[in-house]
């Protein structure tokens, strides 16, 4: 309490001295106030995107020219493949949808995976959409968007006996693809639970068949295999979330702050209005 009283006393003394100084030097006080206001205005005006601030050249060019250049590796159906009719797949559709929402024409530049980041770095493309995951070693210059797909390991079970989480499998069994991330994830859960039998299969399809035949309670496989399987076998159901996530994101130069912001906003909006789900459902 004594300390608080001392601080309050010091503050009162400072306020009193300030008032005295203002009364004695009114013009200096006005000038100081003006300098402070000017400083704040200058700070605000020079923020990125403000009238005197740094301009996002990529976004500006895209809006003025009405174009958008997207880097993509067309070696991964159904996400991106090179068909006689052009580049098709989930990632191509997302790229075109982003262009449509921004009112610009999307041009997809195809390249091998190893060339993607170089193309982004040298400004040949505005962003990359190619099944990329967040790479911590590149975050100094790359902004990664919110995910557009989670390809991670997901539990799949019979619709008659649905399983939502690994915890529900205590005392049960799970089929996994040999040496996959699901295999590793299941082994981790095996140590957490009282009892969990893990049955290995060479391929995810085989693990799913075993689950469907009732040989195991659930299968833990990658989301792409799971969705493709569920598409032709309506008697199986996927858990709502992945057990081992593997999120695909868009990569954009960090300096292109407006582009990065708009991508995140657009992906959120596509998720909200169901566009993203519709694109995924079209291909998976």
């Amino acid at each position, binding site marked *: 309490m004594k300390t608080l009283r001392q601080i309050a006393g010091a503050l009162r003394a400072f306020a009193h001295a300030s008032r005295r100084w203002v009364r004695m030097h009114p013009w200096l006080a006005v000038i100081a106030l003006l300098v402070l206001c000017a400083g704040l205005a200058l700070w605000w005006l020079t923020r990125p995107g403000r009238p005197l601030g740094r301009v996002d050249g990529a976004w500006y060019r895209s809006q003025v020219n009405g174009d958008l250049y997207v880097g993509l*590796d067309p*070696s*991964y*159906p159904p*996400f991106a493949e090179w068909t006689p009719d052009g580049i098709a797949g989930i990632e191509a559709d997302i790229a075109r949808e982003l262009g449509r929402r921004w009112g610009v024409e999307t041009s997809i530049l195809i390249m091998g*995976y*190893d060339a993607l*980041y170089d193309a982004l770095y040298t400004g040949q493309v505005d962003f990359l959409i*190619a*099944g990329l995951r967040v*790479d911590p*070693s*590149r975050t100094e210059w790359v902004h990664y968007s919110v995910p557009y797909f989670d*390809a991670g390991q997901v539990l799949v079970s019979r619709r008659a006996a649905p399983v939502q989480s690994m915890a529900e499998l205590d005392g049960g069994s799970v*089929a996994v*693809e*040999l*040496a*996959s991330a699901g*295999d590793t994830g299941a082994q981790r859960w095996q140590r957490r639970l009282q009892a969990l039998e893990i*049955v*290995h*299969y*060479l*391929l*995810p399809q*085989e693990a799913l*068949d*075993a689950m469907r*035949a009732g*040989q195991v309670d659930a299968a833990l496989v*990658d989301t792409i295999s799971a969705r493709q399987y569920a598409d032709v076998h309506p008697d199986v159901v996927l858990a709502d979330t992945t057990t081992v996530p593997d999120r695909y994101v868009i990569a954009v130069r960090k300096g292109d702050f407006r582009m990065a912001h708009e991508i995140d906003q657009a992906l959120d909006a596509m998720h909200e209005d169901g566009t993203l789900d519709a694109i995924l459902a079209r291909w998976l």
Partner: protein
Amino acid sequence: MINTVHLPPAFSRRAALFVTLAARLALIVIVLRQLAPAGPHVELGPPRTVITEQPAVCTHTRLTDEVDEWKIQRTLEMVRDMGAATIVEFFPWPYVEPQRGQYDWTHPDRILRHTHNQGLNVLARLGLVPGWARPPTHEKVTTLQYLTADHYDDFAAFAAAFAARYADRIDGVIVWNEPNLSLEWGDRPPDPEGYTELLRTSYRAIKSAVPTMPVYGGALAPTLEPDDSPAAMNEIRFLERMYAAGAADAFDVLAVHTYGFTHSPDHPPDPNTINFRRIELLRGVMQRYGDSDTPMTITESGWSDDPRWTRAVRPGQRIVYTLAALEMVTAWPWVDRLCLWIFRQPLDLHNRRDAYYALVSSDFVIKPVYEAVQAYARGWPNPYAPDEWATP
């Protein structure tokens, strides 16, 4: 009585000033050196030996771009522990001879003292061309693989010097890499006759320096490029033209690269397919040219489990195929080793394809395929053997 020397006043003042300044400078240098962070200290440790039941198991390491010595040591320790008796490692010519005739052995010395300490056999792959052996850039812009015939002697001299210096530390010299690809031949159309001349020149130089040093030729890349392609030449055609140019006496072992892509290792050889047994087509060329006694070494092979590549397989298939391929090689008396591409990459995500060929991640986390190969080589129970997984 003390004898004193009387110096002129001006001289003694200058001398005193000089001594004082020198002392201060020395003090600053000492202090700054103490402030600099020390690098990780690497101790060689006692000599080790490889314990393996499968001497054909080999892997291609990538220590060329590795800056930290402890990572070199850690990589080689893990190779030894996997039960691989041999590595293939790349030693770029420009690293060693940056100026003509001036050798700097720091880089290979560092790697080979560790391979020697771990008890590993080394097949030294030599390649790339220093700037002084290529045309000046104002005359012609060339790539690091651009070597013209007038510098074959220079390369051969380097190869011979390398063989002589490391005669007790390496088990063979691989002359060049994948010369049937334009990319690896200085962005020029592949030239089997030109490569044969390079191989012959190098062979003579190496043998004159170390007569017992095995010389590996070829290291050809599997490719289905058509005959008129400027990008590459079919490796079977390339080998035929090498033999026609008299290459039979210019190498002791044929180095080959063979990849399975999506095919299992027992997929039958076919000139129109890239698969593991394509190596048998190259063997056929050797037999046709009467070179059946010359052995082959698979210096690159493997399967990728890249989830985003149409030429990749699933992780379990990768293990099964790799083990089956190793087993197949033991039944081929004409193949002495199978070197898996690639043990580890310095950076995981920079080159994605290679990251999924690796046996160990960049941060030294072992992958299931490493465990499977280790169990196979060491004769341990294999957690990934076929009887450990179910069939529907």
